């Protein structure tokens, strides 16, 4: 497809479309995997390599992210007979996926390896709970946590809520508008056989579910699940020999921050998030803008996080996120669907990786919904988005993933169908 004219002079245009995502894989989303994170990671990496049409020995780089709740690259490599020329396991959760894809590009540009697999393996329900209950609530409070956890300010929902609340104050955002994010993602999940929660919800059901911490109702919060996910990145040239249509990486921004990232609330407006800064890297690097994007993957740890990021990356004017997420734009069949797998709110919680996996499949025009598989082995998409039906976005060419760690830190990536 034709790309907009190159107007910028500083971004690394020579990297646009030079690397591709060729393989994606995951395990079943459960609450009780019954296996270790090592086993989850091994299965996910194996599935992603197989999806690419590669052998484990074709992969020579490994990256992963975790927060003391997972296994390390060396174990997965050992289990699958991969001899890494490079590996690194980094600390962190949300916003890591896009950042590590950017690092994979850098590694390959530096000649350090030729194909990189990125994985996240977590028993986020049955071992280290993402909501912060269990072991994380019992750990001693020291260092910076003396100014946080000591006040019962610990879980992600509790930590982010001052941002969410202030957005309502600054812009008049309504609970019902934000609840629509859950409604739409639940509709998408109902067409995703992999989704942990496939039930469709209404706005009334969201805003009448019990309050967790204002302004978050239970159904504004994502699901805790156990799962492994993996992505294989290699050069666009090499991608020609892989199994699926190429999905090219246009541009990446990784773990971009607001000022005072140690305690971002010191710098306002606190209803503005890291995307406000990241967009000035993402769009010039990608050579496209929000209007060009066909589908988004805006991180939905909470309904609010989807809205805040779409707003600060420029999909609508600042303060109009409530209208954007509730006017049908991001519903399947709308102008720019978001999180067509159901995302973290419904499909499962992977710290961001499943939203990238979903957009890779969308750009292949091969969303794994319930549409029948034709004689050529490909799904015959109906584009009938009713419950249990299709979830393929028609003719999509360009996607944007907007990853979130917290209001102060975010990552993003633009991909296009090759």
């Amino acid at each position, binding site marked *: 497809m034709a790309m907009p004219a190159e107007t910028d002079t500083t971004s690394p245009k020579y990297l646009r479309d030079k690397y591709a995502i060729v393989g994606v894989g995951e395990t079943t989303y459960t609450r009780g995997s019954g296996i270790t994170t090592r086993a989850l990671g091994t299965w996910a990496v194996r599935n992603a390599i197989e999806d690419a049409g590669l052998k484990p020995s074709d992969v020579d780089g490994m990256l992963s992210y975790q927060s003391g709740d997972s296994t390390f690259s060396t174990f997965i490599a050992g289990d699958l007979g991969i001899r890494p020329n490079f590996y690194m396991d980094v600390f962190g959760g949300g916003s890591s996926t896009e950042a590590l894809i950017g690092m994979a590009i850098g590694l390959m540009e530096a000649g350090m390896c030729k194909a990189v697999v990125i994985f996240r393996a977590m028993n986020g329900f049955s071992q280290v709970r993402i909501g912060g209950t269990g072991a994380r609530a019992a750990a001693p409070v020291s260092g910076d946590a003396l100014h946080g956890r000591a006040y*019962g300010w610990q879980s992600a929902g509790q930590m982010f809520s001052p941002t969410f*609340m202030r957005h309502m104050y600054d812009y008049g955002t309504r609970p019902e508008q934000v609840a629509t994010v859950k409604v739409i993602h639940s509709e998408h999940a109902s067409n995703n056989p992999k989704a942990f929660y496939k039930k469709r919800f209404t706005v009334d059901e969201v805003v009448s579910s*019990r*309050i967790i911490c204002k302004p978050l109702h239970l159904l504004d919060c994502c699901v805790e699940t156990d799962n492994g996910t993996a992505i294989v990145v290699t050069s666009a040239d090499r991608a020609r020999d892989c199994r699926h249509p190429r999905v090219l990486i246009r541009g990446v921004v990784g773990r971009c921050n607001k000022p005072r990232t140690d305690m971002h609330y010191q710098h306002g407006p606190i209803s503005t998030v890291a995307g406000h800064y990241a967009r000035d890297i993402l769009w010039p690097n990608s050579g496209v803008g929000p209007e060009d994007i066909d589908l988004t993957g805006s991180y939905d740890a909470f309904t609010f996080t989807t809205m805040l990021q779409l707003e600060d990356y420029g999909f609508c004017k600042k303060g109009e996120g409530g209208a954007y997420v509730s006017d049908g734009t991001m519903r399947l069949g709308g102008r720019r669907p978001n999180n067509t797998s159901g995302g973290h709110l419904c499909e499962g919680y992977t710290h961001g990786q499943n939203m990238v996996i979903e957009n890779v499949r969308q750009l292949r025009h091969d969303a794994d919904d319930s549409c029948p598989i034709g004689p050529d082995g490909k799904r015959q998409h109906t584009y009938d988005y009713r419950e249990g039906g299709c979830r393929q976005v028609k003719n999509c060419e360009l996607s944007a993933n907007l990853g979130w760690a917290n209001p102060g830190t975010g990552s993003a990536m633009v991909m296009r169908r090759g």
Partner: protein
Amino acid sequence: MAIQATYLGMPLDINDLDVENLAYFKHCAAHDFHLQKCSACGLLRYPPTTACPWCASPKSEWISVEGRGTVHSYSEVHHAIQPAFRSHTPYLILLVDLDTQKGKPSEHEALRVVGNLVTPDGTLAPPDMVRKVGIGSRVRMVYADVTAGLSLPHWTIDEAAPQPDKPWRYPQE
């Protein structure tokens, strides 16, 4: 000297090496709120840090700061994570703009000090008090005494200050 204590069922632990936090909480234990003032650029900062967030100078001095301010944002927790907070729900987490240094060094900055809404003796506020406070409420600092050398700064309604007619609260009550 290192401090270990229990507060609301949580083990609090300040290591010998954590000199900034030891100093910060020592002043809180004296009920005399102090922050670091940068010796180079003169700006105060919160929470304690090793160097100045604005000019990177490692030199600072602790100075007394008035514990009064306005609620900038909040969360009202109904589902507590730490077990000992469960008997106090709903409780408020307040992000308070101190009057001191508000709008400096840029209009978007303030010393935003975290704390719970508490009664003047430092106990988490009861539900009828929680309902009175929102964005714009005027609050003053009080303390929960934990152990020698460690009190946690908190916020209570500043009864002497003019309050907004109706502080902004979450619209679905």
